[in-house]
């Protein structure tokens, strides 16, 4: 029995550019960025005051993460009401900070000598978002909340693909949601990883990342089911690779050894050759350590085919959205496969010679995009790469 082919049939985006998919995508292609003055958090002593903020507030019984995630789910569903066995519907979510703002608020209250709302903190586990999405989707099948830092949501996509391709599921929701919080802002800042200006991935003078927030949700289905219900098919998911660097707690391997292995694994799982890849939706954080190592990793994985690929970084539009960053990179690749146009890397005016690939500087690029790799790397030397293919109707 051949493994079922897995396709993306729903895509919802909530970003600092727009609260929907097409609004976000058209703004990306137009070269707008979602970075602006930090107002969500009051951190006047922080040297960097730039962030990608989503104009959505928490609900009465809903964290901002949950609200963003559910909004993205509604867009991904686009009116579709799943039927059939709920136990064959699954939800896999990547999370970075998730309920951390609630814990911060509780701790702040306690430090001020007040009682605080312990019950709220007790039940705001990261998996609360996963549960809320599962309830809305009517999914009583597998659930996973993956916290692999910045590669979490891309791994969630890989896990959803894995189970669909094994024939275990009829429908899976995968993605991530991330809101700004003081711990991550202060943390990246104290590591000197935050650029006080807007970040510049792949640039010679890149000086770090900006933090951002947002949510991306993808519906994945077996191809035969998607066809049977006449679903819109955005792209095909072909497989993923995952690896660890075993090099440093926070810094990537300088030659991209583990990242290249993850990409090679994704290619093998997908049955693709390096020459089949036209786009790499890069991790591209704009930290001095990441971008050069990632470009080396792309060269290691793709060989001479690397000279032909387009590379782009969504961090230049949204900042680093941590737990949802991988899914955001996947969304950018899926829409590039759909529309045959690659979104630009903003502010790439002076490319780093160490990043000697076509990094889609400044403006969107129309080109043939047959297949793409999406990269997400994380603290702990954790690497994930996902392979996608353009849906051409067969």
């Amino acid at each position, binding site marked *: 029995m051949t493994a079922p082919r897995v396709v993306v049939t729903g895509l919802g985006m909530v970003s600092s550019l727009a609260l929907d998919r097409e609004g976000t995508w058209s703004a990306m292609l137009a070269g707008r960025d979602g970075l602006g003055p930090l107002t969500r958090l009051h951190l006047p002593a922080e*040297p960097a005051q730039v962030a990608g903020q989503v104009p959505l507030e928490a609900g009465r019984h809903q964290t901002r993460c949950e609200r963003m995630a559910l909004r993205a789910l509604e867009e991904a569903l686009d009116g579709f009401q799943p039927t059939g066995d709920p136990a064959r519907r699954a939800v896999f979510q990547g999370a970075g900070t998730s309920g951390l703002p609630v814990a911060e608020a509780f701790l702040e209250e306690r430090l001020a000598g007040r009682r605080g709302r*312990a019950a709220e903190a007790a039940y705001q586990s990261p*998996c609360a978002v996963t549960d809320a999405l599962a309830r809305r989707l009517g999914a009583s099948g597998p659930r*996973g909340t993956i916290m692999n830092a910045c590669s979490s949501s891309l791994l969630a996509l890989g896990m959803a693909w894995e189970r669909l391709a094994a024939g275990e599921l009829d429908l899976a929701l995968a993605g991530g949601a991330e809101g700004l919080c003081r711990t991550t802002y*202060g943390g990246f800042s104290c590591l000197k990883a935050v650029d006080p200006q807007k970040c510049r991935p792949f640039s010679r003078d890149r000086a770090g990342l900006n933090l951002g927030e947002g949510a991306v949700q993808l519906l994945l289905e077996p191809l035969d089911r998607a066809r049977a219900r006449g679903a819109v098919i955005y792209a095909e998911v072909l497989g993923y690779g995952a690896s660890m660097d075993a090099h440093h707690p926070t810094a990537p391997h300088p030659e991209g050894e583990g990242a290249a292995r993850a990409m090679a694994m994704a290619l093998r799982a997908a049955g693709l050759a390096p020459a089949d890849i036209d786009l790499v939706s890069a991790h591209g954080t704009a930290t001095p350590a990441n971008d050069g190592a990632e470009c080396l990793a792309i060269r290691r994985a793709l060989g001479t085919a690397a000279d032909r690929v387009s590379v782009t970084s969504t961090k230049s539009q949204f900042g680093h959205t941590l737990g949802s960053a991988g899914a955001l990179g996947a969304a950018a690749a899926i829409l590039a496969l759909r529309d045959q146009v690659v979104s630009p890397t903003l502010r790439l005016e002076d490319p780093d010679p160490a990043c000697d690939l076509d990094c889609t500087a400044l403006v969107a690029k129309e080109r043939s995009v047959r297949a793409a790799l999406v990269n997400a790397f994380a603290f702990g030397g954790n690497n994930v790469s996902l392979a996608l293919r353009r849906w051409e109707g067969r």
Partner: protein
Amino acid sequence: MSHPGTDLVLTGLGLVLPCGDGLAAARASLASGQPCFGELPEALGAGRGAACTAFQPAGIIPPMQLRRLDRPSRFAWVAAHQAFQDAGLDPKALGERCAVAVGTMTGGSEASEAFMRPYLQRGPEGASPLLFPNTVANAASGHLALALGLKGPSATFVDRENAAFAALEQAARWLRTGLADAALVLGVDGLFPLLLDVCGGARLLARHGLPEVGAGRGFLPGEGAQAFLLERRSAAEARGAAPRATLTGLACRSTLEGGTGARTQALAAATAALDPGAVDRRIGGGSGLTRLDAPEAALAAAHPEWPATVHPKQLWGEFAGSGGQLLAAAMLEPAGRVLVTAPASAGAQCAALLEEVRLEP
């Protein structure tokens, strides 16, 4: 993957528990039935719990590394070291063929509190670059990868009381799809003051006496790490390793509703999916919290033919490995067939079936 067959075996076990480090301490604790609860050291929070006060990392974790690690990562390191030794495997030789899957309820939170406290009080001046990398839940897997040279796939699942089951399921999948030859599976949790404060404030903790399954008085918290080496049987046999146990079933079922009835049904469905038949031992996840105890009680009532359920959380506390302590307890006495159930206060309810459990592989 309700029925993975008999092709996956557990060949190594490493334990850090409130009763002490290693298998002998755990066996003695389980045999005595003596709870490990007491007043917690001030650094871990105000109140009672089961802390790993006898934890001994010296000789295993180099001092330079020790100061960089958060509490759960220290536990994970020592447990993983024991598990590799127990399995007779050299982690560095496995390299990219060894996966790591971690389940935790609290991973990263201890470091988050340690980072946040001075940051909230003093702003950027109080922020520690040494602490921040440990605020991610996957800090333990990253430290282990670095220490042991593990380069395969890695995932950290953060869930409620049974996250270690999700980790075990993913590890089994990676082995069966050929992405790894061996997988290190960990359940790990560490205590910290904010956790005690939150659980106490939310009235989840037993305020008097010991936690008692079914009494509805709440639970007491614990900490620890359990490391399991999972391999394909063929690989284990090829290197002459005798398994400690065979993983013959693992199932999780979720609920759409949040009530006790729905969770009870889900735990029963997960158990039924394993088709356990006659079992020699029963390990359960009752903790003193009604949300977990009620599904266990219903399951026991529906199966009077099963032996009485042992609830290790009554000895070692809640958290304490997010279900890893239950799987470990299942491997501490020889048995032909052990059913382990791991209810959770929300989300997925899980069960696992181990067979041919041996004390000395």
